[in-house]
């Protein structure tokens, strides 16, 4: 079996795994990141740090770091209590810097959460948003008269839905329906295709001509997230100049363009930094000998490869990412068979109401770790001195209800990588 050697092997290529690879590569380590990287396409594009605490009360915070101070007091087991505010700030800054270098600029609003319109017609509090969406938070805050322009045939996005729901709070909002050039007679159009087309100037000119009469006199215009794939900033700026009106994007329902942009930005950036990727490979279940360096086997299309590494970061996510597997009776961890903290019985996994604010107990199931983010083995001690975990596989967090997904992934990735490189 062929062998490869690394300083750090990251298992899992969602946001946490990709962040871990990025942070380690920045420090000059030789890094591998392995596993399917499809989960990012489900991202909304928003980068959350923390907005709701405690979830039972549905209390929404304007300041994520004030929320975090309250959280670590209420929930000392939350991963944020292990990483600390400074690591969260640093990880988010590095992530945003990296994405900007890959052509995907993000904006935060100082230390405050921003309220972003969603395609449902609700608003969501989040920390940082793609630059192409940033004007949306300002427009909602200032209640700037705004025209939401839908695109005919784009399934799951209704400009009328957005305005009907926002209008009570945003009186100057209205909607129009545009047709994307060249799609007359098509029953369905695809956001990703439009986004790639709009990278071309001719398409932008045509689209601007179609939009212009519809948005005449608007103070600002909202569009579904279709403004470019690899250079969205330029596309949005150019279209805005052509229409002579500020523009912003509202994300569409996933899988969607903002998630694909994130994935593509990571791919380009990581390859620029020399990170080796094995996105089509599966890391086979393994038993680690605590007295030796970790050895993994990656099963790729062209046969198995033996991975020798000084340290491992496990970032395989939850059920969708296949880091955790739910049987009918209990939940297991899929790569190393690590103990999973979980409710005692399956009828305690979920609450009676899907929309219960308190969240479902199963969402807080996951791995226990020490302060260095080393997952604990059956004896309550780290399973291996140089095995670390980060992201949503960690126990005692509910990233969905707390609105802390990106911050959790990036900060635990940074903390795990620091611990791993120190140990290696």
């Amino acid at each position, binding site marked *: 079996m062929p062998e490869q050697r690394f300083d750090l092997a990251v298992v899992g290529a969602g946001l946490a795994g990709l962040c871990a690879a990025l942070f380690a590569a920045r420090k000059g380590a030789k890094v591998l990141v392995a596993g399917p990287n499809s989960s990012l396409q489900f991202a909304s594009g928003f980068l959350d740090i923390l907005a709701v605490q405690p979830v039972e009360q549905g209390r929404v915070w304007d300041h994520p770091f004030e929320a975090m101070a309250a959280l670590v007091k209420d929930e000392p087991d939350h991963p944020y209590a292990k990483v600390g505010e400074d690591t969260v700030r640093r990880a988010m800054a590095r992530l945003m810097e990296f994405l900007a270098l890959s052509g995907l600029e993000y904006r935060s609003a100082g230390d405050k959460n921003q309220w972003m319109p*969603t395609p449902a017609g609700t608003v969501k509090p989040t920390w940082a948003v793609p630059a192409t969406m940033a004007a949306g938070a300002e427009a909602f805050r200032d209640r700037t008269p705004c025209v939401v322009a839908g695109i005919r045939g784009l399934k799951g996005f*209704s400009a009328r839905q957005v305005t009907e729901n926002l209008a009570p709070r945003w009186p100057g909002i209205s909607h129009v329906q545009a047709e994307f050039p060249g799609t007359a007679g098509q029953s369905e159009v695809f956001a990703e295709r439009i986004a790639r087309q709009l990278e071309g100037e001719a398409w932008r000119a045509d689209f601007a001509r179609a939009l212009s009469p519809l948005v005449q006199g608007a103070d600002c215009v909202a569009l579904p997230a279709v403004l470019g794939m690899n250079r969205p900033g330029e596309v949005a700026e150019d279209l805005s100049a052509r229409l002579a009106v500020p523009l912003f994007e509202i994300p569409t*329902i996933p899988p969607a363009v903002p998630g694909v942009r994130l994935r593509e930005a990571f791919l380009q950036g990581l390859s620029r930094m020399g990170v080796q990727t094995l996105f089509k490979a599966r890391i086979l279940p393994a038993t680690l000998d605590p007295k030796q360096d970790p050895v993994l086997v990656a099963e790729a299309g062209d046969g198995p490869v033996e991975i020798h590494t000084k340290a491992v970061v496990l970032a395989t996510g939850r059920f969708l990412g296949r880091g955790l597997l739910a049987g009918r009776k209990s939940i297991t961890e899929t790569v190393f068979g690590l103990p999973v903290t979980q409710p005692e019985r399956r009828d305690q996994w979920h609450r009676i109401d899907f929309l219960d604010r308190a969240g479902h107990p199963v969402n807080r199931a996951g791995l226990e770790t020490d302060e260095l983010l080393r997952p604990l083995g059956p004896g309550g001690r780290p399973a291996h001195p140089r095995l670390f975990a980060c992201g949503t596989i960690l126990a005692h967090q509910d990233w969905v209800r707390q609105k802390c997904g990106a911050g959790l992934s990036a900060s635990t990735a940074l903390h795990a990588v620091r611990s791993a490189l120190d140990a290696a």
Partner: protein
Amino acid sequence: MQTIVTRVLIIGGGATGTGLARDLALRGVDCVLAEKGDVNAGASGGNHGLLHSGGRYVSTDPEVAAECRAEAQILKQVASHCIEETGGVFVGVPGDDEAYMADFPSLCQKAGISCWELSPAEVRDMEPKAVDPCVVAYLVEDATIDPFRLSLENLAHAQSLSCQAFLGTRVAALERDGKRIVRAVLEKPSTGEQWAVEPEWVVNAAGAWSREVAALAGATVDILYSKGSLVITHERLTHRVINRLRPPGDGDILVPGGTVSLLGTTSVRIKDLADVRPTVAETDRIVEEAAQLVPSLESVRYIRAYAGVRPLITGTAGSESRGLLLIDHAGQGVENLTTITGGKLTTFRLMAEKAADLVCSRLGVDEPCRTRTEPLPLTSAGRWTEPGLAPRLWLRGHDPDDTLLCECEMVPASTVDQIVDALAGQGAAGDLKAVGLRSRVGKGLCQGALCGVRMLAHLYERGTYHGAEGLAALRRFVRARWRGMRPVLWGVSLSQEELQDALHCGFFCLELGQDDQPPPAGRNRKPPHA
């Protein structure tokens, strides 16, 4: 208050109520049907859709067994488009009572039910997923019936003749003048609108709710509530109905339903009709029991569970029975009220016939029952409930302007539009749950996570929703789907649920919303004048 004068008021829109509406309409009797929820909202929609050969009851209730056999034969003639003649197998599982197995053929013979013994090799060949080896196996004439299609079409046919139906409409009061009910007050809880019906006769076909309905007129009905839960697999596992050859018990049957299989059932006595839902414990019990019949049930993927409440008649010694019961309330001092309850989906037609015979004799109507021979017309009302139909039609060709809203079950926008327009006539245009009941939307892999959102956007664009109505409808829809999803969330189903949680709560923040109110009054159609 507006008043509708009619001959018969039917309370309840399940298989019996809709069947009775059609029976009366075919005899030329004018009627009004009021259903507080939607068609088949109770036990009629919460069963496995089995058209009994009768084999299940040969040991416990030969009379019911013979009734099932006779009715199944009639329905196969008059409602064949709602029925799949799958056939059924009774399988003797090693370890079960072999004396019962040995008696089965003679008991079938006594009840007039056909059964043929199968060799182990024949069982393997016909049903490769059944337990192997089995002790013994018998082939019977079980079939499956789509209860939603059946009731939707019974009602549609009745409406085309002489029946007015009000769904989402409760009976708020039954007012008496002496020994007769003279007026019923109907109410649409979603809007608070009320109107009156003045019937000559009232039939209580409210199933598990018939005790409450009788009480409105000061009458009583003695029934027990038995909750039955079922579980649906993602794929169809067998060609035929697979029965466990033992006395009726939990988890003893696997019924094919188009592209899926349904496992059931449990029987749990309950006292309260509020909040009936399938539980994790029942689901586990069904899966574990049924896996003894079809071992791969331990590892297959499940889509959801559901529960219904059977109204069981209390017998003389307090024992329960699956027979039907026709109660004339004259003895209790109410002369023009009849309750029809008990029974089974298979015998719904007979129940309707008996109730209609009684009502007609009292009303002096001298028309015979025609549902025995008159074929149930094929209408568009029920056709979209058929699994696999939408994809077949879509693949065969579709309008270039059309687009799929539900990608799992391939339900196009045109179908949703058709259903929504039909619902608008019943004052429930924007009810995503009602669309789900009349089609396969929300029944596929995503269980409504994505198609619910796509339907919502589509219906907003169409102008069906105003203000926050759509989001409220989405919340109701996902909450309704959740009842059935929650007990089966392991394996891939849990991964899908994680995606839904991230979308509906993480992204849309629906859990934080406050706008989950019923739609404002005045948007719904006013009830028609008499």
